C-alpha cells in the first residue's frame, strides 16, 4: 500500500508538468498579449501611447522572449511560490489571490459536506422506499434542484432574503471586515454568510447525488449477499449500512476526484452573482483581459486540485474495496 501511494505521488510530478505546459499553450493561444489589449483599450479612450514605453514594459515582463523561455520562467517561478505578475491588478499574483484562495476552499469544503449530509439520508430513504409517496416527493424536489440553474437560484434567494428578512446576503462577510485582519469576529461573520452560497452551489450536486445513490443502492439491495445477511439475522438498518451502502459507496468515492474542481469552477458564476470574494470572478476577468499569469496560476491551481482529488479517491477506493486492493495478489 505504501509503495502504491509513493508511486502515485511520483507519477503526479510528470502529470503536473504536462498540464502546466498545456495550460501555458492555451493561455498564449489568443492572438496578442495583455499589453496589446491594454493599448487598444487606451486608444479607444482617445489616449495616445508611447510605443517605446510599451516596448520597455514588454521587455520588463519578458513578453518579447520566445515562448519556451517564457514558459520555463513561469514554471520554475511557481516552484518557489512566485506565480508571476498580474498586469491588471499591478500586483504579484500571490497578493491578488491570497485570501480568496482560502475562502474558496472553505466554501467548497462546506458545500461538499452539505451535499453529503443531505444526499445520503435522502438517497437511502428513496432507495429503501422505492415508489412510495416519500420517494416520489423527494425525487420531484431533487429534479427541481437539478433543473434550476445555480445563478438563478442565487438571484432568487438574494431577492427573498432582502425582501423578507431585510438582510443583504451578498458577499461572504460583513463589509467592515473586508480588509480587516483575521479575527474571531471575522470568522464568525463568514460563517453567518456562508450558508447561502453553500446551499446555492450545493443544490444541484445534492440532487444529482441523491439520484445516483438511489440507483446504485437499488442495484445492490437485491443481490444475494444481502439475502445472506438477512438470513443471518442482521437487523435491517445495520444490514443496509454494512452491506449494500458500503458496496455502493464506490461510485461516490470515485467521484471525489472530479468533485473538487467542478465545485470550484461551477461556483464561479454564482460567485459573481453573489459577489463572493472567492477566486471565480477573478479567473473570469483574468481570462477576459488576457492577464496571462493570473489566469495560468488559477488553471494550475484547478489542475492541482484535480490531480490531488483523483489521488485521494484512488487511495480511498483501495482502502474501501478489497477487490481493488488485492486483485492480482496480496501486496
Amino acid at each position: 500500500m505504501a509503495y502504491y501511494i509513493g508511486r502515485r505521488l511520483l507519477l503526479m510530478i510528470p502529470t503536473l508538468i504536462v498540464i502546466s505546459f498545456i495550460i501555458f499553450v492555451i493561455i498564449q493561444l489568443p492572438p496578442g498579449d495583455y499589453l496589446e489589449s491594454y493599448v487598444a483599450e487606451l486608444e479607444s479612450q482617445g489616449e495616445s501611447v508611447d510605443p517605446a514605453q510599451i516596448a520597455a514594459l514588454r521587455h520588463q515582463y519578458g513578453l518579447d522572449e520566445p515562448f519556451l523561455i517564457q514558459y520555463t520562467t513561469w514554471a520554475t517561478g511557481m516552484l518557489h511560490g512566485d506565480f508571476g505578475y498580474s498586469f491588471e491588478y499591478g500586483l504579484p499574483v500571490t497578493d491578488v489571490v491570497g485570501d480568496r484562495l482560502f475562502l474558496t476552499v472553505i466554501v467548497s469544503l462546506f458545500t461538499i459536506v452539505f451535499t453529503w449530509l443531505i444526499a445520503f439520508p435522502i438517497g437511502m430513504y428513496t432507495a429503501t422506499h422505492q415508489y412510495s409517496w416519500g420517494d416520489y416527493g423527494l425525487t420531484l424536489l431533487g429534479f427541481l434542484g437539478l433543473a434550476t440553474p445555480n445563478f438563478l437560484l442565487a438571484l432568487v434567494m438574494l431577492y427573498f432574503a432582502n425582501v423578507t428578512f431585510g438582510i443583504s446576503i451578498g458577499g461572504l462577510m460583513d463589509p467592515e471586515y473586508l480588509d480587516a485582519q483575521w479575527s474571531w469576529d471575522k470568522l464568525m461573520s463568514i460563517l453567518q454568510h456562508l450558508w447561502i452560497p453553500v446551499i446555492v452551489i450545493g443544490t444541484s450536486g445534492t440532487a444529482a447525488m441523491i439520484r445516483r445513490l438511489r440507483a446504485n443502492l437499488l442495484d445492490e439491495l437485491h443481490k444475494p449477499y444481502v439475502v445472506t445477511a438477512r438470513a443471518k439475522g442482521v437487523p435491517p438498518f445495520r444490514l443496509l449500512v454494512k452491506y449494500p451502502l458500503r458496496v455502493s459507496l464506490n461510485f461516490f468515492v470515485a467521484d471525489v476526484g472530479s468533485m473538487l474542481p467542478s465545485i470550484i469552477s461551477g461556483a464561479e458564476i454564482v460567485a459573481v452573482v453573489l459577489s463572493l470574494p472567492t477566486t471565480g470572478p477573478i479567473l473570469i476577468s483574468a481570462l477576459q483581459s488576457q492577464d496571462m499569469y493570473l489566469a495560468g496560476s488559477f488553471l494550475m491551481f484547478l489542475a492541482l486540485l484535480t490531480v490531488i482529488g483523483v489521488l485521494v479517491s484512488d487511495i480511498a477506493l483501495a482502502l474501501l474495496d478489497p477487490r481493488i486492493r488485492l486483485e492480482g495478489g496480496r501486496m
Partner: protein
Amino acid sequence: MSFTLWPGQTLALVGESGSGKTVTAQAILGILPTNARITGGQILFTPPNRQTVDIAQLSPKSRDMHDIRGNQISIIFQEPMVSLSPMHSIGNQISEAIRLHRDIPKSEEKKLTIEMLELAGFAHPEQAFNAYPFELSGGLRQRAMIAMALICHPSLLIADEPTTALDVTVQAQILHLIKSLQSKLEMAVLLITHDLGVVANMADEMVVMYHGEVMESGSSQALFRTPQHPYLKGLFSAVPHFDMKPGERLKPLREIKHESKPFRHDAPAREKAAVSAEPHLSIRNLCKGYTARKQSWFNREPKQTTKAVQDLSLDIAVGESFGLVGESGCGKTTLSKLLMGAIKPDSGSITYNARGSQFDMSTLQGEALRAFRRHIGMVFQDPHGALNPRMTILNILREPMIIHNLGNEATQRKRAEDLLALVGLSSRFLNRYPHSLSGGQRQRVSIARALALEPELLILDEPVSALDVSVQAQVLNLLKDLQQELGITYIFISHNIAVVDYIADRIGVMCRGRLVEVGHREQILRQPAHPYTQALMAAIPYPDLDRTLDFKLITESNYSDPACWPAPFGHALDQHTQWKQIADAHLVRVAEAEMGA
C-alpha cells in the same frame, strides 16, 4: 403444502425451477420478498429445549424472528460466487452471526470462527479468516457459506441447491461435508434440489413439488424404489446415466419439436466428402499460459505463469462429436477460446479444415479472420449472460448475419424465424427480450444464434450445466438431433461425464491443462484407465439408492494432483509425459520415465 421434518433428519424438496421450493425456504426464514405474503397455514418450529413457535404468525421484522434467523435456522444458497459480500473478509462475515446472537468477547468470536472454518474443511483457517471471497474458489466459498450458516449451531439448516453451481467432484466434497457436520451437530437439513442424484445420497425423506403443490412425498426409500406419480417418474427418466443403451433417448417432461428442413440442404454432400477426408480440426502441441499481473516496476521477479493448456495435440474428425471433460480450472474454456481464435496460443498450431481448404488459425488476421469465424459457432454456459438484455431475440439472431453482410432485412428476418423453428421455438418469440424467456429457452436461442451462419463446427462450453434436469434433457436431445440432421462437428465441454457420455462419440479428459485420457466413449466409461478419470466417474451422484457416492474416495485422495497419482501415471509438474496406447484409439498419458522401464 405440508411436510414434517424431524430433528437430525434430512428432507429433500425436489422439483424443477419455478416449482416453489425456494419460496418455501424463504417463508420458513421469514425472508420472503416484499411482494409475497403468507396467506394461510402454519410453520411450526421447535428449537431444542424450547417452546414451539409458529413462524407464519411472527412478523418478519420482529425481535423473535431475528433471533431465529441465523441462530436457530440458517441457510446456504446456490451461488457461492455472489452470496458473500465482496467487500468484507470471510472472518468478518462469519463472526457477524455469532456477534448478533451470542454475547461473547471478541477474541472468543475469532477463536470460534476459526474453529468453524477448520470444521468446514479449510486447510489454513487463520489465513481464510482474513481472506476475501474473491480470493477463494467456488468450492471454498461454499465451505465458507456453510461455516457461516453453522457457526451458531442451528437446529435446522436449509440448503438451497447448495451444489448446483459446483463441479461434480467439488459437489461430492460439499455433500460429504454437510452430511458429516449434520451428524456432528445433530441438526435437521432441509435440502432443496432438482438433482435426484443428490437426493439419493443425502435424504431420508423427500417431497416432490410441482407448481407450488406437493406431488408425492414419503421416505426416499419408497419414492426411489416405487415412484407413483408420473411427474416423479418423468424426472427419473430425464437424468442421463451410464447404463443407457445405444440409441436410447432421454425423456424430458416436455418434448420439444423442431424443424430443421431449411438448413438441411447441404448436409448429405458434406457427409460424403467428409468422412474419408482430413481431420476437421487438427491441434498440435498447443500451449497457452497466463502470467500473473506483475507486482512492481522495479522488482522484476521471474513471472509466474499458469499453464492453462500444455502441449495439447488432438485430431477431431468431420461430423464427430467430441466430449471434453474436466473440473473447472483444468483449461477447458481456455482451449475453447483458442479454438475460436478469441485468444492466440503461445506455441503450437491449430489447423482447421474447411471442406478441403486448410486454415492455420494462428496466422489468420484481420479480414481473413473475420471471414473465417463463420465456420465456428459457440454456445456458452450461462444463458443469462450470453444474451444482450437490451436486444430483442430477432436482433440477437440477426446480428451475426449483419456482421457478415448476409441478405437484406427481410431475408434475415425469415432466417431468424427458421432458426427459431430449428430449436423448437415459435416465431412469436422474435420480438421479445431475453428476460421474458426461461433458462432453457434462452439456451435454445443461444444455440440458434450459434447456428445462424451455418457453421461446420460448434463449440459447446457447458451448455446445460446451468439448467434443470428436465430442461437439460430437452436441450441435450435437441443438440443430439441437430447434429445428426445437420452433420455438424461438436466439441462438447462439460464437467459432468454422464452428460458428455450422452452426446459424445469420443471423450477426452483434461486435467491441469493436459489431456490425460482420450478414447471412444465406451472405452472411457467401461475401462477408465487414468486415476483422474476414475475419480471424475466416482464423483457423479446416481439417482439410485444402491449406488451411493463413495465419499472417502473423493475427499481423501488428491485426485487432481499429478504428483499423487499412482505409477505409471504420477509425475512431477515439470516431468515429461507421453501417450500410451492401451487399446485401439484409447490413449492414456503416463510419465515418461515409466516408459523406459
